[in-house]
């Protein structure tokens, strides 16, 4: 399975930060971007994101995501720009008929919205590409006191998605080799076609989960208090990063209060 956002192993500073720090980073980017009205400030946040991605050596993997976001932003801006009447008109969509006026305020606002979108939406893939899912989950259990059972459930669910898809393909091929036609454009028929594929899949996954449960029990799962192998304590780099982020957020709040 080629997941569209997948952990890419690396050893950059950002890779080594605590997952909690990185989660805080996504939130502080969001706060700063929505506090400030200045497109240049938001642009600099976006550039910082790109620098982080570059140092983490994931810029190539980020490229399709950024391209998608850019297309989305363009469409959004085109929809938005004609509805802002304030400011001076700089150009018309159809100059011959003086139709579809575009104002300078409109352009500024659309650029701001697009940049906000790019900066905030690009943080999540950066987080997921530089942090293994299991680390995020461990950090959530250890630091945010999420019950272990829930985080384990999440881990297992994530781990079983690829094997689930393999299984699905296998069932599909088995059915197809017996002449089952699963090729249709009609969404309703497609749904009906899925049923004979879903039942064997359901049965095998129940069997698998039963075996998984047994193999967890024999290793003492649920026998009481448990310890944690992964070290998810905060390092100096984490504290420095948090201080930097906090100062930016505070600066953003101060700037917003002044204007």
């Amino acid at each position, binding site marked *: 399975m080629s997941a569209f956002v997948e952990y890419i192993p690396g050893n950059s500073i950002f890779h080594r930060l605590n997952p909690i720090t990185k989660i805080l980073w996504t939130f502080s980017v969001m706060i700063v971007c929505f506090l400030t009205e200045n497109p240049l400030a938001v642009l600099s946040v976006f550039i910082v994101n790109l620098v982080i991605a570059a140092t983490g050596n994931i810029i190539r993997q980020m490229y399709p995501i950024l391209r998608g976001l850019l297309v989305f932003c363009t469409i959004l801006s085109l929809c938005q720009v004609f509805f802002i009447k304030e400011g001076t008109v700089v150009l018309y969509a159809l100059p011959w008929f003086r139709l579809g006026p575009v104002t300078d305020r409109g352009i500024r606002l659309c650029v701001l919205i697009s940049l906000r979108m790019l900066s905030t939406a690009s943080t999540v893939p950066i987080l997921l590409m530089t942090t293994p899912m*299991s680390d995020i989950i461990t950090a959530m259990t250890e630091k945010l006191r999420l019950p272990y059972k829930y985080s384990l459930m999440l881990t297992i669910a994530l781990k079983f998605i690829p094997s689930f898809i393999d299984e699905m393909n296998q069932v599909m091929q088995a059915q197809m080799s017996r002449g089952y036609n699963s090729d249709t454009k009609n969404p309703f028929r497609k749904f009906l076609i899925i049923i004979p594929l879903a039942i064997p899949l359901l049965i095998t996954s129940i069997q698998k989960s039963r075996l998984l449960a047994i193999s967890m029990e024999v290793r003492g799962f649920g*026998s009481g208090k448990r310890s944690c*192998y992964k070290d998810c304590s905060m390092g100096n780099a984490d504290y420095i990063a948090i201080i930097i982020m906090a100062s930016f957020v505070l600066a953003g709040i101060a700037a917003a209060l002044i204007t």
Partner: protein
Amino acid sequence: MIEIHDLTFTYSGSGSPALENINLRVAGGEFVGISGPAGAGKTTLALCINGVIPHFMDGSFHGTVIVDGYDTASAGCKELACSVGSVFQDPESQIVFSTVEEEIAFGLENLNIPRKEMVSRIDESLKMVGISHLKRCSTSHLSGGQKQRVAIASAIALKPKVLILDEPTSELDPQGSMEVFKTLENLNSNHNITVVVIEQKIQLLSEFCQRLVIMDKGKIMMDGPVKSILSNREVLNFLGIDSFPVAKLMHLIRDKGLYDGEFPVNIDEAFDIISYILKPKILH
């Protein structure tokens, strides 16, 4: 190490017992193979030894199973996890985590073992099964044999006295099967772990085990040293266990009355016997 007395178990909803009057003693340090046709109750026996029956499965359970001094029916989950390690058939669905070290850590975390000790135990068990280089690997990219060795490592990290494996090689290629059995041999002879392995491949059992238990229809049909069991062709044929080429060849040689000594269990032994038979003829 393992003592089973008059064990009878019937799954709830089933009319006939899956195990009937099983009596089995396995001493510490033994390497025992269990074989038999499908539906013989081998897996059920394994589940009785590791305590999954009667703890997590419904059915009527009679008799006693004592492993490492613990009665499995009354011992807690924790004691059982520390005295019996289990490895199952499908390497895919017994591995929970995405990296090898996390997988091995799981059992240790469950038993609330402090982190420092955990690190050393993980390294030790990886070394014991010979996969230290895979410590940080992703579990999804391993071969079948490697996956099973990860499963073995995560079982022995809890320092069990007994290791029970339910058809650990049934989904592996010959090379992976060999890997697994060599690992078991090492654990058995160098680390004094009692190994009980359920296996269809008689050839592997004959090469590695000292003792063979043959089951059929919920009963133990034969129990003894590998050589004496393999020399009894009628019983093996009756049970539908296909004996391997060496045994077949030796049976033919015996039928001709050419040889009547100890039964060979591997190619080297068979070679010695055959050259012994041929020698006088070559000399003449």
